């Protein structure tokens, strides 16, 4: 194995490596954007929003309808997709989770799985199971040549948009009133209530932000991997959930780090061990097991302290 690795490295030119690096960073960015939604919802409701991956899928269909069917310019569609997806996230919270606010955690989890199935089947019914092609946006999908290697423009756009999104997110969470309320609710919702914080508004906002980030990720995902099916969100959803757990669920920075580790790791494994490429999807699970074994709370996870 080690010999092969050296061989692989020796065979790889600097340009080739740069190509893999760019691909890894952009995949990691996408994972990070989607993982944040899992981690924020968990931080506040202590539940896994199983429908989050399917929200990604719906965002891709929204983009398809906007650009391919209604011929709306892609940049306007992009904004529209963010708004529509954020709304969808808020509606799911409102209908599937809020009525169960005082119910046992298991009921909420079951409701989340139900919401996920509902979205998948709804997409299947409305858009048919036949794969569709994410609209082509030449500006983003064109190849840029660097000597012998070609890299898609979107691979450079993704990290930039991701960083911008993260800056906005961190500003909201750390420097606005609603962000302060979100942090307070995640630690002690009872006392937050006594301070006059409207918990329902805070939870809705959390879903809106998480879904908006997922929409941004989904749009760019579609440009890079253009096949859309009703089950499209399942695998990325699962991996981004793993990314959130690896980083320490509930922790936004952790979700970003987890996303990058997974994205870069996946691409690099395929690059260095082409014979292992069939196991690409297993990488996330193996990494999850290893990290949870050494650090059960994830990389940046806090010790779970019992609440008074």
């Amino acid at each position: 194995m080690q010999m092969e690795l050296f061989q692989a490295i020796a065979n790889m030119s600097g340009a080739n490596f740069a190509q893999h690096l760019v691909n890894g960073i952009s995949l990691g960015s996408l994972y990070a954007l989607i993982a944040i939604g899992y981690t924020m919802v968990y931080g506040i409701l202590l539940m896994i929003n199983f429908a989050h991956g399917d929200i990604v899928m719906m965002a891709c269909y929204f983009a398809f309808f906007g650009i391919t069917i209604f011929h709306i310019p892609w940049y306007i569609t992009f904004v529209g997709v963010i708004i529509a997806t954020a709304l969808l996230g808020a509606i799911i919270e409102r209908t599937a989770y809020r009525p169960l606010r005082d119910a046992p955690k298991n009921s909420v989890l079951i409701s989340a799985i139900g919401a996920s199935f509902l979205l998948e089947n709804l997409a299947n019914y409305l858009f048919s199971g036949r794969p569709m092609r994410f609209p082509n946006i030449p500006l983003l999908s064109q190849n840029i040549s660097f000597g012998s290697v070609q890299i898609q423009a979107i691979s450079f756009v993704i990290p930039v948009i991701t960083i911008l999104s993260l800056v906005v997110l961190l500003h909201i969470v750390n420097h606005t009133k609603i962000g302060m309320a979100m942090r307070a609710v995640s630690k002690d919702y009872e006392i937050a209530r006594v301070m006059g914080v409207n918990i329902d508004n805070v939870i809705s906002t959390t879903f809106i932000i998480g879904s908006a980030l997922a929409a941004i990720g989904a749009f760019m995902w579609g440009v890079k991997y253009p096949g859309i099916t009703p089950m499209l969100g399942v695998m990325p959803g699962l991996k981004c959930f793993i990314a959130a757990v690896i980083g320490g669920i509930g922790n936004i920075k952790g979700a970003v780090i987890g996303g990058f580790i997974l994205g870069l790791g996946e691409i690099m494994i395929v690059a260095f061990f082409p014979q292992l490429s069939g196991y690409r999807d297993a990488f996330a699970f193996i990494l999850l097991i290893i990290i949870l074994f050494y650090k059960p709370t994830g990389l940046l996870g806090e010790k779970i302290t019992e609440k008074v």
Partner: protein
Amino acid sequence: MLKISDLVVSYGGIEALKGISVDVPDGQIVTLIGANGAGKSTLLRSIIGLVKIQSGSISYNDQTINGLNSQKIVQTGITLVPEGRRVFPNLTVLENLQIGAYMRNDSEGIQQDIEKIYKLFPRLEERHWQMAGTLSGGEQQMLAVGRALMCKPKLLMMDEPSLGLAPLIIKDIFSIIQKINKQGVTILLIEQNANMALKIADKAYVLETGRISMEGTGAELLENPEIKAAYLGKKKHK
């Protein structure tokens, strides 16, 4: 004023409060003492809307407040310094004060009140940037009181503010309670530290396993032989 009549609260069929009536007149310090598990915290939690009441009524300035959600109740001018401080550990000291003013929109007034709190507790100003979770127990208690004051309460309820604090700090906290009261804030104080609490109280209640067993002025209860034996004597053995 706050008026509680025949309040019954139960947890899963077990009555924690078995029909109690308590009056808290405006401008006074009213204290409620009682052993562990007597139902003291339950009373405060039901006033602020964190637990549902089974029967009876809670009214504040002749408006029935039981059944309202906490947000509405806090809007009437009632606030709580909860048992065990419960500052937000992941927020800075300053943010904890700001969130106390969550329902206010007068940023200038908020800023002035923060300055006032800093005058009351200079320690909080020194540490305004620090995560509240890293404060000492006494500092957290100051912060919990300061946070509650930030909503400009008319009625301040405190659940065992002296719990786990050194005697010197307890003295500070009690003198600050009196100071706050002199500024026109009505106080409902729950304490295990019966001696100190009765000394500053205009009116006092003794709660025993969900029932009021005694009431009177602070001075009366301080002299009461039963109280001396049950609550004040016990303290000496500590």
